[in-house]
């Protein structure tokens, strides 16, 4: 699989990272190089192998249905780049 600049731009857009045309030009061969190297996994026969689900055998615990957190609006908003009246704010979204 080969990654061209259009693909790089598409992936960057999915990842919400603004890149210039020059960035895309630079990244395409770089990513190709890495992806080409990764593709050596194709050599491995995994036809009868299950994908790993948990690295160390362990069971998902379920917690009790109890309210333990809340009423901390100031703490939640403390690091916000922009907020007012107890809300985070973002550029107006047109839905």
């Amino acid at each position, binding site marked *: 699989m080969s990654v061209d600049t259009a693909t790089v731009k598409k992936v960057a857009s999915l990842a919400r990272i603004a890149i210039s045309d020059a960035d895309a030009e630079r990244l395409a061969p770089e990513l190709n190089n890495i992806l080409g190297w990764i593709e050596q996994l194709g050599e491995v026969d995994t036809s009868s192998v299950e994908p790993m*689900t948990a690295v160390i055998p362990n069971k*998902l615990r379920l917690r009790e249905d109890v*309210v333990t957190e809340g009423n901390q609006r100031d703490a*939640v908003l403390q690091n916000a780049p922009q907020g007012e009246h*107890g809300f985070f704010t973002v550029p107006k979204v047109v839905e």
Partner: protein
Amino acid sequence: MTESTYRIQGETGEWEVVIGLEVHAQVTSNAKLFSGAATAFGAEPNSQVSLIDAAMPGMLPTPNQECIRQAVRTGMAIGAVINKWSRFDRKNYFYADLPQGYQISQLFHPLVGEGQIDISLDDKDPEANVKTIGIERIHVEQDAGKLMHDQHPTRSYVDLNRAGVALMEIVSKPDMRSPQEAGAYLSKLRAILRYVGSCDGNMDQGSMRADVNVSVRKPGAEFGTRTETKNVNSVRFVMQTVEIEARRQVEVLEAGGKIVQETRLFDPDKGETRSMRSKEDAHDYRYFPDPDLLPLELDDAFLEECRASLPELPDAKRRRYEQELGLSAYNAATLTADADTARWFEALLAEGARIQKKGENEVARASANWLLSDLYGALNRLGKDLDTSPVSPEQGAELLALAADGTLSGPLAKQVFEIMLETGDAAGKIVEERGLKQTSDTGAIEAVIAEVLAKNPGQLEQYRGGKEALFGFFVGQTMKAMAGKANPAVVNELLKKALAG
């Protein structure tokens, strides 16, 4: 199963509509799916937000047992396969109401597999026209936060109170063929959820909303391309959406156009659906198993508890009301359509049986009739519902018992009931204080009858001359003179004697 005959008449002939619903139902729980923040509706903005919900760096999800339990119980209630091994996946996309940049959901291995719901298409006879709608799956996922767009000219406000609240996504198969079926399915699903107690079903508060998948085809042809109309929030709107969207698709196709698989929005004010192009750009959710969570493995004890705690469900209850309580099919269906109604009725029934020392089946019909006509009529008039009823099941049972043992005549019972609605007093107290007890005292009744006959010699003559229809007039006059308190049976008997001379 009956074939639907709903058809859209197009210029090129008849079209059939194919409908599938994805219902998002908020799981009833105190805390959120992966955090300890509260879920209550209507709190101050961002006051029910944990650091996990706000996706602070290094915060991790821990699952809430109750949310899993309620989803399992819901699955059991629709006869579904419960997957003892399931897991959570991340659905990745960027939006201001999604703090993590992904929604924790279940794509690859949902908690609940295939099940089904029977819907009835005939109110009068629920068993007459039943259709089974397949359920594809139920999975558990996080709700998003809320954006407000009208508070500021250039900014949208973000409230994360809802972010992370547990939802069940209940996905039907494309088994519905008419707006009525879609409406019946949603109503039935809502009833089941409320019976199970896994969702309060309040569609106006957003606790339940439906994504409506609609396509059209010529009858018997392959499925057409579908559109998905998002977040439709009432049964009526779902039915309208189906109707409007199917008609639109027929028009597009008959004009030589093609249906685009897309997300649409229903606008109830304009009565139209329209494309949500803003959300359409290059969706690629990059689902993968959430590495912060291990697979969810349920043991037999957990499943057993879920099953044991399931209540009697609407269909079973309806059949029991018919078969064991002797109610009409219609009354049984009406009383069981909603968990609250059934609960109220059963409280009325239990109390009635207790104080009358009778079997529930002996008091059931009177109880059902009173609830469905007298009480519903009054609540309607007062703009109230069972929840806010001024008369409790216990009070209703007392009233019915007084009617059953002859203390109150039919008219007197209605009179007492009106006073109960106004004052909230118990029937017995009202009867006692106002002396509204029915009398069967033959002496007193005979005296009144004598008076009535004396006052109306003309009618008496006519009656005796063969105009027997005047009997009702004499009954009415006697009852009126006794302020409605005379036992009608005794009045009838004594009147007949007196009139015969």
